[in-house]
């Protein structure tokens, strides 16, 4: 009946890592990285989120079905973001008429 019991040290080290990443992301915001500012902030957030999901939420030790549910949510989120963004990114472009005729 009992699931996977992680040692306390795992939780403490994940907590430490999360705090370190929080520090990094704040520090990075004060540095001008040009176009990289946003990707860096987002990447750090994604790393932090992954740590939480894998260790605090035990997905690392969960069934394949749970992993599938997580993957499904990300896949459909990606569809929502990508297809909507496709519209905004290509607005104002001339139609590729020569291609079609």
């Amino acid at each position, binding site marked *: *009946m009992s699931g996977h019991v992680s040692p306390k040290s795992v939780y403490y080290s994940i907590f430490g890592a999360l705090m370190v990443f929080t520090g990094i992301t*704040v520090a990075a915001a004060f540095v001008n990285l040009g176009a990289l500012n946003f990707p860096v902030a987002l990447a750090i957030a994604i790393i932090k*989120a992954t740590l*939480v*999901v894998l260790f605090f*939420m035990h997905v690392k030790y969960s069934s394949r079905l749970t992993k599938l*549910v*997580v993957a*499904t*949510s990300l896949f459909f989120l990606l569809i929502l973001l990508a297809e909507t963004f496709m519209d905004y990114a290509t607005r104002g472009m001339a139609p590729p008429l020569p291609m079609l005729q």
Partner: protein
Amino acid sequence: MSNAVAHADVHGGAHGHAAHHPKLQHHFETMEQQKEASTLGMWVFLLTEVLFFGGLFFAYMLYRIWYFDAFAEASRSLGIGLGAFNTAVLIGSSLTMALAVRAAQTSERKATVTWLILTIVLGCVFLGVKVVEYADKFEHHHVPGAHYIWAAEHAPGEGSAGAAASEAEHAAPAGGDLQRLTQIFFSLYFTMTGLHALHMIVGVGIMGVITWMAYKGRFDSSYYTPVEMAGLYWHFVDLVWIFLFPLLYLVERHT
């Protein structure tokens, strides 16, 4: 007929030797099945939550790209100290939550209760800081709508066309655009943090119930599903904030 059916006496057969766990609901056959159902249900619920915040996230991304300067400007008006503090508080509460679940897994009743109470306290600290931040926004008229005013030094060029034109003659800095565009930022800020705070409030409520149940000794290593499910929810709420913090507070701080 099809699905040629035989009837197996389950209760007398496979599981007959094990007495029913008191927490086993009648429509489940085993505790294992019951726990798996709860876990799957919780994850499917979190999946809906991902898409729920996903719609807001897209709106934010779009307008951030379109109106970057307004977003950077508005973001700088948020207190980074409070934001970072709250992030630390929430991550800390995730730690205490994880430890509460662990304590339940190992049948440590007292530890479970202690960690849960700590989680509630940290959650309330977060909400308290949020109240302070919101009050500040109200004071500065940073709540979008009829009373919205973008900072005084950026006085909006409202008035008649003639007034606007004469203002242009004096080459006064015009805050008209920021007056409009920063409202989009704050609309998203309030919607996103408001919904997050609402999730926190619900979370604190759930934690209260779970803590009480833990105090009454309802959980041990053979049955701790409610603690685990509440933990998943709490971690998810933390996860949302992990994204909200850089998106809202850290748009551009280096200028």
